[in-house]
């Protein structure tokens, strides 16, 4: 009896002891583990890895893909347990917290020439301490995906769609077109008499979510034309501006579209995605990002058109500019090999390969031109996305700490205003809560 008890205690104690001490992850010699989440890009990066492995003998790169939902929890748990990958695709909303907890290796050693990248992208990945933590791999912007057939039926031309304008007071031609494309169950259009806003068959503008504070594809391309920025400075702002009238008026205008029946009520959009509803012919225009091109182009029976975002009171268009980069984990077993791989990923050798697959726009200027061509060969005109880069009308994705907490506050607040539960002035209170995080 005592023996069994003793054995149990011993096992328990040793378990405790073992947990306290660290341990290696058991990497083999010269292997660099690389993780990414987008399965659509997997073939391109596998090609890059093969090319890289063939070009030298010291390092072998192993590519693993894990879906977005599981990706970050595996990485975080891996970092805590010492089994995180050597190199991984990083995201602007996650990397500030990784920097804060010292989980990333600085890339300063590479002394990379950042002039080859599209302007602004490289700056996003420099931490507050001045060290570089990522080299840009791709970029995306926002545009209007629309149903060409519905536009033609409404008596509009593609030219009309390509030259929309907007203002927060009456919505400009943007709102007019949206109203025109909205059709109720009796066939009455949104701008005709007798339009029944409670019985809509096709909505002019689709709704994805309330924007959760970022509004990347929902409203940020409108607020930017009023000169509004999310934070006091970017990157590394510490004060958010949700209390400013430019933001609140834009949001109010946008929410009014649902009241008028041109945009679906928020509660009906939980479930199938806005894109799927587009594919089902339930809405005419979707404001979405360039990473969705493949999906929109894949819907059977839909003739896809892409138009640039409307011109605003500033006289110009706007689009949020986002970009991914690859980061190295601070605990990587093979830092030299990892650096070499990251350098390769950020060079034309790899980015041209990625361009050829026509899934995303690589960060290097010359490579992204190749990508535009590859898209054209697939029958998709991506000029609506590239115009922002060409004309310099992009603004950066807000980089700040506490990203997840900001979303945690802004998502319910935005949902409430969009559904009409709260007035736009309730954003003042939310803004206070957000700014309190930075004190």
């Amino acid at each position, binding site marked *: 009896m005592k023996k069994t008890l003793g054995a149990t205690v011993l096992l328990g104690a040793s378990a405790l002891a073992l947990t306290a001490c660290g341990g290696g992850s058991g990497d083999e010699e010269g292997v660099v583990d690389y993780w990414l989440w987008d399965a*659509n890009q997997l073939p391109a990066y596998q090609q890059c890895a093969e090319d890289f492995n063939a070009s030298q003998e010291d390092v072998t790169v192993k590519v693993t893909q894990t879906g*977005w939902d599981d990706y970050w929890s*595996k990485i975080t*748990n891996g970092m805590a347990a010492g089994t995180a990958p050597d190199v991984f695709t990083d995201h602007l909303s996650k990397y500030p917290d990784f920097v804060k907890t010292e989980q990333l290796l600085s890339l300063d050693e590479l002394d990379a020439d950042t002039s080859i990248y599209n302007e602004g992208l490289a700056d996003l990945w420099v931490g507050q301490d001045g060290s570089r933590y990522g080299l840009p791999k791709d970029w995306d912007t926002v545009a209007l995906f629309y149903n060409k057939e519905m536009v033609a039926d409404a008596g509009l031309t593609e030219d009309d769609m390509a030259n929309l304008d907007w203002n927060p007071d009456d919505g400009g031609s943007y709102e007019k077109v949206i109203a025109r494309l909205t059709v109720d169950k009796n066939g009455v259009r949104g701008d005709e008499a007798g339009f029944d806003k409670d019985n809509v068959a096709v909505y002019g503008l689709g709704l994805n979510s309330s924007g959760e504070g970022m509004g990347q594809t929902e409203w940020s391309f409108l607020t930017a034309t009023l000169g509004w920025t999310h934070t006091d400075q970017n990157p590394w702002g510490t004060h958010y501006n949700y209390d400013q009238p430019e933001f609140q008026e834009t949001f109010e205008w946008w929410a009014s579209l649902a009241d008028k029946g041109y945009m679906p009520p928020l509660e009906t959009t939980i479930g199938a995605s806005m894109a799927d509803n587009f594919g089902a012919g339930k809405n005419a225009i979707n404001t979405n990002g360039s990473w969705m091109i493949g999906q929109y182009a894949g819907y059977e029976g839909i003739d896809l058109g892409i138009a640039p975002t409307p011109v605003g009171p500033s006289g110009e268009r706007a689009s949020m500019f986002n970009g991914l980069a690859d980061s190295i984990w601070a605990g990587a077993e093979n830092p030299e090999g990892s650096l070499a791989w990251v350098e390769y990923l950020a060079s034309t050798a790899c980015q041209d390969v990625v361009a050829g697959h026509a899934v995303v726009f690589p960060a290097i200027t010359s490579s992204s031109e190749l990508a535009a061509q590859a898209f054209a060969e697939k029958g998709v005109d991506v000029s609506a996305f590239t115009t922002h880069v060409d004309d310099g009308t992009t603004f950066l994705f807000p980089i700040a700490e506490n990203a997840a907490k900001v979303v945690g506050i802004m998502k319910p607040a935005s949902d409430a205003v969009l559904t009409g539960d709260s007035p736009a002035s309730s954003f003042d209170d939310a803004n206070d809560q957000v700014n309190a995080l930075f004190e």
Partner: protein
Amino acid sequence: MSETRALVTGSRRRPRRFSPRQIVPWTLLVLAIAVSVLPFYWVLRTALSTNGALAANSASLLPADVNIGSFLRVFGLQSPAEALAEGGSGASINFWIYLRNSAIFATVTTASAVFFSSMAAYAFSRLRWRGRDKVFGLFLATVLVPPIFTALPNFLLVRNLGLLNTMTGLVLPFLFMTPFAIFFMRQFFLSMSREVEEAAMLDGARHWRIFFQIVLPNAAAPLATLALLTFMTQWNEYFWPLLVASDDSTRVLTVGLGVFKSQSPQGAPDWSGLMAATLVSALPVLILFAIFGKRIVNSIGFNGTK
């Protein structure tokens, strides 16, 4: 209203003619079956559709643009290019290896946990010792522990033992017991007749022999039920294998088929692939039930002395 009487008394001597009195219970039963089974039709229908056509044909009850590509994707028989073209993810799937790993994982953990739990249940029901009910209470309390507490420490423990990406590490937390199994078997042991046991003890048999030669055989039916339910739960286990068994050689089916869920934020799941994967991964359990089902569902109530 003798049909209700028969319903609640469980009298087995009623003749089973279809009579008007049986209509109400039969209707209810048909309704219950319909609700349980019809969504599987929807699974099949979606599995046989093409992803790009699903949205446009949302009002149709038949598959949209019939196509068995989804099943090919599940078995890893489509090339990445074909898979991507059909809205799939292009990630590789080693179906048969994942199946083998799931089978090993579920079988080993079920057999082990049920066995050890039965042993513990025997101690809690048939043996007398001080503090018995308090310790039982402690075991019961484990049902209440929120999973957030156990996930990370268990992961750290397995990693520190050097058992990551091994089958040993994968099965470890589940090998020793499940609280439900202990609770369940204790109830049944308590209700068993003691006559044979007492006779055996009079003959000088020790507890170990009694357990193996008398108690366990008598509890065959509840053990089989418990084993089936535990197997089903283990078969569908997702988060732990995701953390611990990421290598292809140890990956289980649920994780492997996670490639059909949405791969990127705002992306859509590969619906037809996901539904096909659901059907295929449910198949082994269905087969198991077909083989052992009769024994379980028909003979749970046993009649004491044999």
